[in-house]
């Protein structure tokens, strides 16, 4: 107990005024705004797919993009909540991406059923995953860098969610940029790599989130 008393005295001497961290809603809003800006600039520079207006008339495409945007917002908010030791006491909200992913898989399944006759597969494959990953590097870096300033007690989950948020920025960009209609190709090379991202995020989170 004497050691604890000594420690308490020492810590109290270091108790200078501290500015509390921003609310996770504000934090996620900042990240979302930065990502939207990044996405807009990338789309202006890279260009939108020529048939985008027509594609949005297809309910499956519109739902897919809406849900993908929902996943991006939910993962960003979840990462912001996970930055706090107690998840800002909003545990259910922090787990919201799980439900959205479930819904996303469901919608992709129906989009695949509706793809008759199947749209022709594009000649490329892996390039899409590479492009999404490349686009996601910057958002992943700034999210992980920001998260390091907080105190996550769920390092692996935080890493995964942060990388998924960044990867979904890349995925939205490619869906709005690339002229591909094959849902099989999109599932295989745009969305399935998210599973690898989850594992990579766990690995990275354990190393980056130490405090």
């Amino acid at each position, binding site marked *: 107990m004497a050691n*604890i008393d000594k420690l308490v*005295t020492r810590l*109290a001497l270091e*108790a200078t005024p501290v500015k509390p961290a921003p609310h996770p809603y504000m934090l996620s809003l900042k990240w979302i705004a930065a990502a939207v800006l990044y996405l807009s600039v990338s789309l202006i520079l890279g260009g939108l797919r020529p048939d985008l207006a027509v594609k949005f008339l297809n309910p499956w495409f519109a739902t897919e993009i809406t849900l993908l945007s929902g996943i991006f917002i939910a993962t960003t908010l979840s990462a912001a909540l996970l930055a706090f*030791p*107690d998840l800002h*006491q909003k545990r259910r909200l922090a787990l919201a991406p799980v439900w959205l992913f479930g819904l996303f898989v469901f919608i992709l399944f129906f989009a695949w059923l509706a793809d008759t006759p199947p749209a022709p597969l594009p000649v490329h494959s892996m390039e899409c995953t590479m492009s999404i990953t490349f686009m996601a590097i910057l958002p992943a870096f700034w999210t992980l860098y920001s998260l390091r300033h*907080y105190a996550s*007690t769920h390092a692996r989950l935080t890493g995964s969610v942060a990388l998924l948020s960044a990867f979904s920025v890349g995925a939205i960009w490619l869906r709005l940029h690339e002229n591909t209609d094959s849902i099989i190709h999109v599932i295989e090379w745009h969305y399935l790599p998210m599973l690898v991202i989850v594992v990579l995020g766990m690995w990275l989170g354990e190393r980056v989130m130490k*405090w």
Partner: protein
Amino acid sequence: MTDPSNNLEALMKQSLNGDQQAYTTLLQETARLLRPYLSRKLSFANEVDDLTQEILISIHKARHTYDGNRPYKPWAYAIARFRLQDFLRAHYSDHLRHALDFDEMEENFQENVTESVMSYESISKEVEKLPEKQAAILQLMHQDGYTAKEVAEKLGMNESAVKVAAHRAYKVLRNKLDK
């Protein structure tokens, strides 16, 4: 007088504004709250003390993630659970390492770890340079004459852990003295 544990949120708010007195009370109250929780999870009093200190340091480091507008206890317990998991992970991996050391010790079973041909006084300066726990064990065994079992009881460790620590200390001392 009101019980400070009822108003931890207010104490933390004051602490965030740099009130050292409030912060001292808050940390003392937190330590008092954590003690029964950690005692249920850990076997030895010294482990509870060590971990309580680690948790208090973590609370200090993470205090900017608390804004005073939500209950304090869930926030503090989240940090405590996190550090407890870390501690247990390290503890069990250390146990695995100890298991390897026991193999190594079997070669030296003929050595009596409670007796030494050299007097404690002649090597006391080297002993002081050892890690705190190892130095304390050697001092209790060789200067004060306690057995490994008695040292274990005194330090809240198990007997094997005391022997392993003593064995490691002998190794370090032997290497130093050989030089």
